[in-house]
């Protein structure tokens, strides 16, 4: 499947890009993050992150569809 991945804050620094398109056999955010964490060397365990698909928060077991926009969100620090 094809996904569009968005990266923010320290994940963006680690990936070296703000977004990228990937081909992956992963069918949920959990598997997709494991794959990308290994590739980019992300330090965060999934429990520290939230996941959003197509601009809405969702769970790590969400069933992904081809073309989905997926973001792994580090702990926020606005305000």
């Amino acid at each position: 499947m094809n996904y569009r991945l968005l990266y923010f804050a320290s994940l963006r620094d680690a990936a070296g890009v703000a977004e990228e398109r990937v081909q992956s056999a992963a069918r949920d955010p959990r598997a997709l993050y494991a794959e990308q964490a290994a590739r980019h060397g992300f330090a965060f365990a999934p429990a520290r992150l939230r996941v959003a698909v197509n601009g809405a928060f969702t769970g790590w077991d969400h069933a992904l569809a081809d073309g989905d926009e997926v973001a792994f969100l580090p702990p926020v620090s606005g305000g």
Partner: protein
Amino acid sequence: MFRLSEIAIDTAALRAQLARADAGACVTFEGWVRDRNGGKAVRGLAYQSYAELAEREGRRIVEEARERFAIAAALCVHRVGELAVGELAVWVGVSAGHRDAAFAACRYIIDEVKRRVPIWKNERYADGASGWLHPDDTPVA
């Protein structure tokens, strides 16, 4: 209403939007860029956001405040991009019939914004270093 702003926040214009003839109380919160954090001198900072989701989540928080508290109006604007020390980073304003609800709703909004809205702060230090911050303002390990 919640929105992100890439330019300085016009607090007088926002406050004017809160006016209601039946509102007797108005509480505002401003978050300012401090000159230090954890003993390090801060030169400035940059906020990065996931804009689409930040505005959606921010609007949801303001809507929750309207449901939970007897308020007349509530607004929140959060800066993104580069900010200098002393600049206004986030503004929350709430008007209400009475002050209990205005204080509670204003506090609710800033607490939830800091907890939930996908915005990240990167501080630039006087020693040339910079770094992303955790929600409790400690550096990311």
